[in-house]
């Protein structure tokens, strides 16, 4: 029975009375202070996925290339040649709204650790960002500038190239920016490692940075609650990242794995030592003893609960056989990663925390990891479209020329060069296509083949129609891979939504997951991992439902990787795919002040598969000189982008709707002789001309597109 004295405390820590009662029931007693702190984090939305775990079971996770599915630090797929690619996307939304530089930086740091925790060397980072309107919001400009600086700072310093990404600006994100970071890593199959602890008597070693008070309470205080008044007070909870420390940690861990010195490895993320220790023990069906007196501290006088829930960055936990501990310590000394024996694996099923030998917490592992109540969502389709955001823009340009220039200038369509010039996309010498050269990033493998990766998601369109919009994101991601000649191998996703306890948001979430599942089944692409970020809401309302999809694929010949720019005077141009452009959810509709209301174009799955296959095969065969999927902005913008990237014009004739959108369905391609395709024109000259409808100099197109973000970044 909860007493009057203890219930306010559990509520302060984010536990409901119902949850607290379950804790009492499972423990058979009141929890000790350290135990309550640990439980409050392990049972938070961020760690336990209590509102989404049941729903996520809908996603297909099987596939012939899958080596590790959801549940590990990162998913992994076989890419041939004895190599595996591990990858995952994670969000760091709430911390970034409080401190965008460190929030974005530590978001990158965290996802890097997830990837090398499974034994893969990180070889690429991509980021998917959402902010409010930069033209009217100084705060959004500030968040953009600081987040980009933070991503650059961390990724560049650690020597992992940032090879791609996307940024969208919508008033919907004004109070709740989104920072999703994706990482992919490479490993020989034998080096992949799981996190399950094993072998009672084995030693638990902590490596990396000292433990301080970073992020104390971060997981439950920030990530499971809506942002409200007084978030300045949460600033002491902000985590500070140190990429130099992580570089040493990464090299150390990879060497330990190459030498086969570890039984298991786990990174410390949300809820720090508590979650790592619990998860390692749970997966291995063993117990763990941790003595906090051995944890190297940055701050004097830290209490046991603080040590257990600290989110200090750049730390890893590993399990080592006693006979190999000396070798492990030697490798760690060489890399200056401060190794410390902090505990041991036990044959019990309990996580015990000791302080200099005295037990301060003693909890069954299952209570921490498995006993958190899971909640069913109560979805209810809203009676009227959800539209908490003010309509922006009401320009009525008179002709297609002006419309196209306005679209190219707009925040969502303009050049991202001022952003990606702050990133290093080439360190590692694997990058075959740089930003703006192709629809997906491409990384060469030693045998001459290559990995392609793209990250995509359009919240406005998902707001129009959650099921179709979420499915569309999957199709668009696959289209980006097809445009460079790659076949999809696997997918990771981050679901960024509002408060799932509200029926309309729950409906969006359920519909979006269904859409993703259906698209994955249609394309036969398994989900190998992902992340959920809920409660992205403010008193003004929820964000657009924003599922972000990261997809990895493979192409057999890196030298034949596709490009998006028109390449050669005289090349024929064609549209490939069953293109059904519509105004709903389009950038033009946004510019003209329309709210996001559906429906989105229906997709005939076989037609989509055929189109993706045709482009992929054409690129691989060298028959296509360029391929670019028709995405936001519609056909006119796609053609303009091909001209700008290629530095050459085009003359085409078509009746197709110029600004309607239908993502993931169709492509603009060019090549010397496009057999079997309906040719609509040719590459050449200094202007883009769509006969009878539009004519603009390529220089004018480039200039319109170039300006936008430079002003916002200051």
């Amino acid at each position, binding site marked *: 029975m909860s007493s009057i004295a203890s219930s306010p405390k559990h509520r302060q820590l984010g536990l409901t009375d119902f949850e607290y009662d379950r804790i009492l029931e499972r423990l058979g007693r009141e929890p000790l202070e350290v135990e309550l702190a640990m439980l409050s984090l392990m049972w938070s939305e961020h760690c336990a996925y209590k509102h989404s775990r049941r729903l996520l079971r809908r996603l297909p996770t099987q596939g012939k290339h899958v080596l590790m599915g959801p549940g590990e630090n990162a998913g992994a797929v076989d890419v041939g040649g004895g190599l595996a690619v591990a990858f995952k996307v994670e969000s760091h939304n709430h911390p970034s709204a409080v401190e965008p530089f460190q929030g974005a930086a530590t978001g990158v740091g965290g996802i890097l650790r997830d990837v090398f925790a499974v034994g893969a060397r990180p070889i690429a980072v991509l980021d998917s960002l959402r902010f409010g309107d930069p033209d009217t919001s100084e705060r959004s400009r500030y968040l953009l500038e600081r987040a980009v*600086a933070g991503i*650059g*700072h961390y990724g*560049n*310093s*650690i*020597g992992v190239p940032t090879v791609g990404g996307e940024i969208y600006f919508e008033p919907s994100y004004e109070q709740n920016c989104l920072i999703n970071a994706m990482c992919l890593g490479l490993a020989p199959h034998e080096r992949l490692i799981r996190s399950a602890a094993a072998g009672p008597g084995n030693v638990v070693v902590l490596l990396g940075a000292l433990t301080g008070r970073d992020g104390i309470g971060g997981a439950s205080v920030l990530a499971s609650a809506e942002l409200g008044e007084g978030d300045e007070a949460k600033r002491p909870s902000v985590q500070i990242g*140190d*990429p*130099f*420390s992580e*570089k*040493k940690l990464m090299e150390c861990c990879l060497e330990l794995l190459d030498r086969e010195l570890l039984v298991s490895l786990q990174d410390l993320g949300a809820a720090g030592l508590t979650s790592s220790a619990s998860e390692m023990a749970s997966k291995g069906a063993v117990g763990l003893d941790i003595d906090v007196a051995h944890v190297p501290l940055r701050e004097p006088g830290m209490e046991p609960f603080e040590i257990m829930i600290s989110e200090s960055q750049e730390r890893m936990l590993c399990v080592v056989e006693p006979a190999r501990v000396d070798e492990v310590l030697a490798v760690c000394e060489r*890399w*200056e990663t401060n190794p410390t024996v902090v505990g041991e694996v036990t044959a019990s099923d309990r996580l015990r925390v000791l302080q200099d030998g005295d037990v301060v917490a003693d909890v069954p592992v299952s209570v921490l990891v498995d006993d958190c109540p899971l909640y069913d969502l109560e979805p209810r389709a809203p009676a009227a479209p959800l539209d908490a955001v003010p309509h922006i823009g009401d320009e009525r340009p008179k002709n297609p020329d002006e419309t196209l220039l306005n679209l190219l200038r707009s925040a969502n369509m303009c050049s991202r060069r001022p952003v*990606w*010039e*702050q*990133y*290093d*996309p*080439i*360190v*590692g*010498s*694997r*990058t*075959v296509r740089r930003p703006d050269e192709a629809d997906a990033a491409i990384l*060469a493998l030693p045998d001459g083949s290559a990995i392609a990766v793209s990250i995509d998601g359009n919240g406005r369109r998902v707001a129009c129609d959650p099921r179709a919009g979420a499915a569309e994101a999957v199709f668009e991601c696959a289209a980006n891979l097809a445009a460079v000649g790659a076949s999809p191998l696997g997918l990771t996703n981050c679901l960024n939504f509002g408060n799932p306890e509200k029926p309309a948001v729950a409906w969006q979430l359920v519909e979006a997951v269904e859409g993703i599942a259906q698209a994955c089944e249609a394309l036969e692409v398994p989900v190998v991992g992902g992340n959920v970020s809920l409660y992205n809401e403010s008193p003004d309302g929820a964000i657009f439902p924003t599922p972000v999809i990261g997809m990895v694929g493979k192409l057999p010949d*890196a*030298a034949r990787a596709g490009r998006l720019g028109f390449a050669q005077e005289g090349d024929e141009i064609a549209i490939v795919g069953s293109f059904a452009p519509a105004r709903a959810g389009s950038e033009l509709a946004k510019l003209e002040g329309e709210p996001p209301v559906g429906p989105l174009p229906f997709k005939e799955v076989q037609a989509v598969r055929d189109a993706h296959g045709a482009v992929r095969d054409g690129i691989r065969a060298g028959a296509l000189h360029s391929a670019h999927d028709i995405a936001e902005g519609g056909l006119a913008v796609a053609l303009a982008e091909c001209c700008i990237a290629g530095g050459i014009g085009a003359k085409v004739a078509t009746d197709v709707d110029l600004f309607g959108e239908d993502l993931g369905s169709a492509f603009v391609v060019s090549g010397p002789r496009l057999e079997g395709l309906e040719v609509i024109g040719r590459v050449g000259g200094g202007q883009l001309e769509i006969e009878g409808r539009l004519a603009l100099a390529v220089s004018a197109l480039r200039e319109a597109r170039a300006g936008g973000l430079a002003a916002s970044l200051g």
Partner: protein
Amino acid sequence: MKFGIVQFPGSCDDVDALGAASRVGEATLLWHAERDLKGVDAVIVPGGFSYGDYLRAGAIARFAPVMEEVAEFARAGGPVLGICNGFQVLCEAGLLPGALLPNTSLRFVFRQVELEVVDPDTPFTCACARGERLSIPVKHTTGRYYAPGPVQVVLRYARGHNPNGSQDDIAGVRNEAGNVFGLMPHPEHAVDRLTGSTDGLKIFESIREHVEHRVFA
């Protein structure tokens, strides 16, 4: 011939330099804590963020044990190439004149730039012609070259290509003896048609030419 690439904690482009040098000769890594140059014919101090760029870029790396050997090697006339962070280390170590300051933009900049070969009579540019243009990428936050006194310029950014505000558009300089050379652009990232231009290969080929034929006395 054998290249040695120094590896500090935080070096990032060491492996890239190793790969580029391996196209031209043998190459090995030289660990910062060991006073052992393994008998290499040329030393490369690579790009990256040694010691996290703490205090000042290169300020701590210059005191690494291996750098004592590199200084000795340079004193004896051995060719030493410093790329980006390596250039910063060599300036901090006094093996090259001047210093690298924060870019005028105060931002990290990644860009493919055109360089002009000002001095082809060095062990690092002897495979180039005077005035030849090289297309090579830069990626740095602290690349603005500054030197109050006279300097021997080897490479300049072509007009309009200066990415960081370096005085006189200086991209790379040598010491008086001519055997130590530092540049901010990354030639090791311009050696493979698959990933960019191949103009950077000429720097490595020059070093091989020099070592094998002792072109530059």
